[in-house]
């Protein structure tokens, strides 16, 4: 679809681009938590994840100021965050993210079952091919397939095929 047909918008600002700045901060507020979770699940440390999030949104600001495409900004944010994270991991090595596995409101037995299943699932996820794992983790953060495709530079069909493979592996654990 053409990016220019349609009405024209003029944001007037005196302080040098308040509209873009406001847009970037609004997206930061919306996406910081899922982005941080995703970065942590890639093995990035907490303080590094926070740095990467800052860097990502400053790049977003430059991206928008330069009038670059804005049709899939959520996907764009995760793509840039993902790439920055991998660079850092190469430099620093990764940390196994430890999640608090306990959920409230369960009997000790239920908790033990649940915990064991969580561990099995994490093992399956850890053994997935890289791309499949990324797709699955991004889906867990609520991204649409289109946005995952943008983030990982994959086609819609490839995203769907990857998720189908992973779900099949996970459902074996579910049944086990």
């Amino acid at each position, binding site marked *: 679809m053409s990016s220019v047909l349609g009405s024209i*918008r*003029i944001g007037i600002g*005196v302080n040098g681009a308040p509209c873009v700045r406001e847009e970037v901060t609004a997206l930061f507020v919306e996406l910081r938590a899922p982005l941080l979770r995703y970065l942590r699940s890639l093995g990035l440390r907490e303080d590094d994840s926070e740095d990467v999030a800052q860097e990502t949104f400053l790049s977003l600001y430059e991206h928008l100021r330069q009038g670059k495409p804005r049709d899939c900004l959520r996907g764009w944010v995760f793509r840039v965050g993902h790439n920055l994270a991998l660079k850092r991991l190469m430099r620093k090595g990764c940390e196994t993210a430890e999640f608090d596995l306990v959920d409230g409101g369960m009997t000790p037995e239920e908790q033990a079952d649940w915990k064991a299943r969580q561990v099995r699932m994490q093992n399956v996820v850890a053994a997935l091919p890289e791309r499949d794992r990324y797709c699955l983790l991004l889906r867990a953060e609520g991204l649409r397939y289109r946005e995952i495709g943008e983030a990982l530079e994959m086609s819609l069909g490839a995203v769907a095929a990857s998720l189908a493979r992973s779900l099949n592996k996970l459902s074996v654990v579910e049944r086990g």
Partner: protein
Amino acid sequence: MRAHEHLRDEELLLLLDGEAGAREQEWIAHVAQCQACGARRAQLEQAMANWVASRPSTAPPAMEQPLANLRRGLETRSRHWLRYAAAACVMAAVAGGVLWNTHLRAPAGPLPDARLTPGAARALTRDEVCGLAEEDGERRAPVELARRVFRDYRIARPRARAYELDYLISPALGGAEEARNLWPQPYAEGIWNSRVKDALEDDLRRQVCSGALELTSVQAELAEDWIATYKRHFRSERPLAEHRGFMKDQAWE
């Protein structure tokens, strides 16, 4: 054709994510009458829900400090931009200066003041509208005109604040570049913002050009009440999820 074959898992997943594209109707029809595919779709949906639910739901880390850091970073970068960037900023500053001193009045909302902005269209036929080159659909109102519209709407700017100058009837649908077809909309404020309007205009234009809708009646509907047009057109009282984040036009600062 694969009309009588079962859908593959990835096809069912695409269907679930609303991305079946041109085959959507065909697939929906198949799943509706095929027990195996219906059951498989439910399984995949459940498996995906289980996966998402299995993820740790850690409380979102405190926002205050990181947000303050980001704001500082953006401040620094925008000073850089101010120093090096284009005439656009200068023009904005000029317009801003003029607007600064005008009388305060309630800011323009999602619908224009009908006395100031009744809407205006150019005398173009459907074929001419649909044959518009991209540059013709992309019309930036000249600064003089923008100033006049803001003045007419008596928008004061006690603090730096962004508006969009939106066409009531978009140029891509034959709208005119005139004050009575322009009004200031608060940028991305409220649910009926100009992104939602852009999504509507895109769809209306497609339908006009495919012959499904009449150009002049679309123009009249937009001029009368674009929000009501949206509700009728998409049969929805609220903007559809996929239109709320619709971003198309570039901000001009």
